């Protein structure tokens, strides 16, 4: 241990000769705030963060490390997903002739880790680079409705934008980058600048210490991180480790090498819960699993057939078998914790008899008695694909069995991820159906999935087109008042339920394994690291260096 809170604890640790001896301390025991500082927390996940550079990365874990650990976003979401101040201490809006002006007033005491103050110029720099096409910032569309930015004074910046719901949302997702470090880098070289993986300089609660590729990222608490942004984190060091093999990370967690294991496999949950030194924290995540039916295929053109497919698939069983219960049978593309979720909508039940009736009504009958239905000369037989991943492959097997019971033949194909991606995103849509996952966003915009205008775009997998759905999806992106938008969202979910362009399988519940010695860990759809500055480690259960 590098910095112990009291001499007494150090002596106690030395006497015990090990770092985790007192791990099974009473859970209810009260530890005063002053004793909570210190220790190293080790987080393990199977993904290597691509970069600490906002301009380059799109993967989730990079974003979390950027926005919760190394940098500061202008705003954050609180637990009820309402925007709250963070780097910006407040904001105000004003109407302009063609839209609105949004001004952020930044805290004047947040420093880059080299000592320089974070100012509105950094925010402006970041905004300009994002808008610059040469940067090739992957998520440019976040700021599509933002036109320009103007620095008012060192700590005030005003954006001019067109009015739209969720206009604050980009700012919980984008952390300003340091202009004094990256200002002179050509925009086209920003993404690959060594800043991202060798020398990131942040302004957040932790500073960058070390990166060993394929192994770990190490961050260290910033002692004078401003109180107004939450103050110094309790833990001294945060070590992010890349462990790809799930059995290895589970062993690490159970043996105490790892403190938090992100996204453990559902079948590992029971073992983690059975161990007295570890617990499972699970929460409904933003992602859901689905089957996309290619609407250009004759078999999937009729909504009755698609509805029959969903009725014939036992989704509850899939959740139990594949996710060990860690999932919520899905009824549409809106996740349950989202404000637009349709509570009253009854999900389609598992009902093979109705499925058979619907298939017959749509003209799919087994006339030759081989157990497979036909319509004219077309057999009800199709290829279901996915990429190599155990849970998705299991889903396919269950779906195959369920659909065989109602007279459909499913051929299974597991395809390398990139080659599958090429097939499903190509204009010709050379596939029948596939199982994949999709990650929704807090600011939902499903046009990319289901709008007629997107029929040739990479993500309109169902080739689904309904003018009313188009209308609804367009309107909900314009109405700022949620109570006015809600009925439209409900209608959208009802239509999708009836027409089933996808079979929505389940919303994912994400289980994370946590050692008991790490206290006050909260995780939800905002992220695994959302309250990393509040984590603390029982003094008697900290690792000792030697």
């Amino acid at each position, binding site marked *: 241990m590098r910095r112990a809170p009291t001499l007494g604890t150090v002596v106690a640790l030395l006497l015990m000769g090990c770092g985790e001896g007192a791990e099974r301390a009473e859970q209810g025991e009260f530890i005063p705030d002053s004793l909570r500082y210190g220790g190293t927390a080790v987080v393990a996940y199977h993904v290597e963060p691509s970069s600490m550079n906002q301009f380059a990365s799109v993967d989730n874990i990079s974003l979390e490390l950027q926005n919760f650990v190394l940098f500061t976003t202008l705003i954050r979401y609180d637990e009820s997903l309402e925007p709250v101040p963070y780097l910006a201490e407040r904001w105000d809006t004003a109407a302009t002739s063609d839209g609105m002006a949004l001004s952020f007033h930044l805290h004047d005491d947040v420093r880059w880790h080299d000592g320089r103050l974070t100012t509105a110029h950094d925010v402006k720099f970041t905004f300009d680079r994002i808008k610059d*096409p040469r940067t090739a910032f992957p998520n440019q569309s976040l700021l599509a409705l933002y036109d320009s930015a103007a620095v008012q004074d060192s700590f005030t910046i005003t954006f001019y934008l067109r009015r739209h719901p969720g206009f604050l949302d980009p700012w919980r997702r984008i952390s300003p980058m340091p202009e004094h470090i990256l200002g002179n880098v050509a925009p086209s*070289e920003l993404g690959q600048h060594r800043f991202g993986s060798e020398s990131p300089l942040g302004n957040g609660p932790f500073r960058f210490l070390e990166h060993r590729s394929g192994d770990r990222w190490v961050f260290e608490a910033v002692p004078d991180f401003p109180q107004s942004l939450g103050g110094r984190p309790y833990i001294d060091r945060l070590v992010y480790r890349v*462990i790809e*093999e799930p059995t290895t990370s589970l062993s690490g967690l159970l043996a105490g090498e790892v403190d938090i294991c992100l996204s453990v496999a559902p079948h590992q949950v029971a073992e983690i819960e059975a161990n007295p030194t570890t617990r499972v924290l699970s929460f409904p995540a933003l992602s859901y699993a689905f089957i996309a039916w290619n609407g250009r295929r004759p078999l999937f053109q009729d909504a009755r057939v698609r509805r029959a497919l969903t009725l014939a698939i036992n989704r509850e069983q899939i959740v139990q078998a594949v996710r060990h219960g860690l999932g919520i049978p899905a009824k549409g593309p809106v996740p349950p914790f989202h404000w637009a979720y349709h509570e009253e909508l009854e999900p389609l039940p598992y009902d093979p008899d109705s499925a058979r009736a619907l298939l017959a009504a749509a003209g799919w009958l087994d006339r030759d008695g081989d157990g497979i239905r036909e319509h004219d000369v077309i057999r009800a037989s199709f290829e279901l694909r996915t990429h190599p991943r155990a849970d998705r492959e299991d889903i396919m097997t269950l779906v195959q069995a369920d659909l065989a019971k109602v007279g459909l033949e499913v051929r299974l194909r597991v395809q390398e991820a990139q080659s599958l991606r090429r097939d499903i995103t190509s204009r010709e849509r050379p596939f029948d159906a596939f199982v994949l996952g999709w990650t929704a966003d807090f600011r939902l915009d499903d046009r990319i999935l289901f709008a007629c205008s997107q029929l040739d775009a990479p993500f309109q997998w169902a080739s689904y087109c309904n003018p009313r759905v188009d209308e609804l999806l367009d309107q909900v992106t314009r109405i700022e008042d949620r109570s006015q938008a809600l009925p439209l969202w409900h209608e959208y979910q009802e239509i999708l339920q009836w027409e089933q362009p996808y079979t929505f399988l389940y919303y994912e519940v994400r289980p994370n394994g946590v050692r008991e010695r790490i206290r006050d860990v909260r995780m939800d759809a905002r992220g695994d690291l959302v309250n990393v500055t509040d984590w603390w480690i029982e003094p008697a259960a900290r690792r000792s260096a030697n």
Partner: protein
Amino acid sequence: MTTYIIRRLLQAIPLLLGIVTLVFIIVHAAPGDPTAMYVQPGVSPEVIEQMRENWGLDRPIHIQYLSWLRSFLTGDLGVSLTQNRPIVAILAERIPNTLILSGASLLLIFAIGIAIGIVQAVRQHSRLDHVLTLGALFLYSMPSFWLGLMLILILAYKVHLLEWWPAVLKFPASGMTGVDYDLMGGWAKLGDRLHHLVLPSIALGVASAASVARYMRSSMLEVIRQDYIRTARAKGLSERTVILKHALKNALLPIVTLLGLYIPFLFSGAVLVEYVFSWPGMGRTMVDAIYQRDYPLVMATTFIFAVFVVIANLIADILYAVVDPRIRYE
């Protein structure tokens, strides 16, 4: 000998060029490209196009190849498209890790393999010989990744639940160094590294050790039936001297050539073992690079592996000459 080595190295140049060219063609022929991981909702096709342009992927493939070859020949390996850093820096970090792991395994393979082989040959057809043969076959047939997982499960997890189990035999499940490595003193650092090395090098080496033992046994058996061994025994030398001094050197001859065979084998095995033990080595780098279509990194890592294999073969040939004075390279 020197001219021989130089000639061999010169011969390796067209071979290596052929390899990288072939790899270039194969990896570019595979579906997808490095921008694929950015193809997500919210990422417009224009952005993807801009990335391609920034990375030079919009040019015709032969131009890409020539431009890659030009910088490659001048020693510029380029920048990784997934890790966003110079490939030289990545290799400098990763190559030593793989060498440490395969070096440790190699030691283990030959030390254990040779020792067991000798014991078996000397005690041919004894019960010990049969048990060791069975054990060797058992280990030889075990896939390294599965053995790795079992080692982790037992020696990195289950034994942690036992109070009486000595701490030094409770091994870490993954990585090269402990979490607090940077805060340790010199000896503790060394101990920590060795501790992390044990399980992966066993997982990587044990199957080959078993096969070395088989080779060693038969090679030794052949040698001790020869006349000069009978002569040595007739002189009244102790059995120990006969075996270790007279028989061993000749029996080792075919074993030494195995070295050249095992090194490529170790590198390919390292891919799986590095994955299982989260060892930050070249194997994992290469596999990740292939999956993500990180073209420059795929090229660099395959090139390095090819160089290793060429060098390993050369070393084997040289050792052959060293061990057997009858062999002369001109």
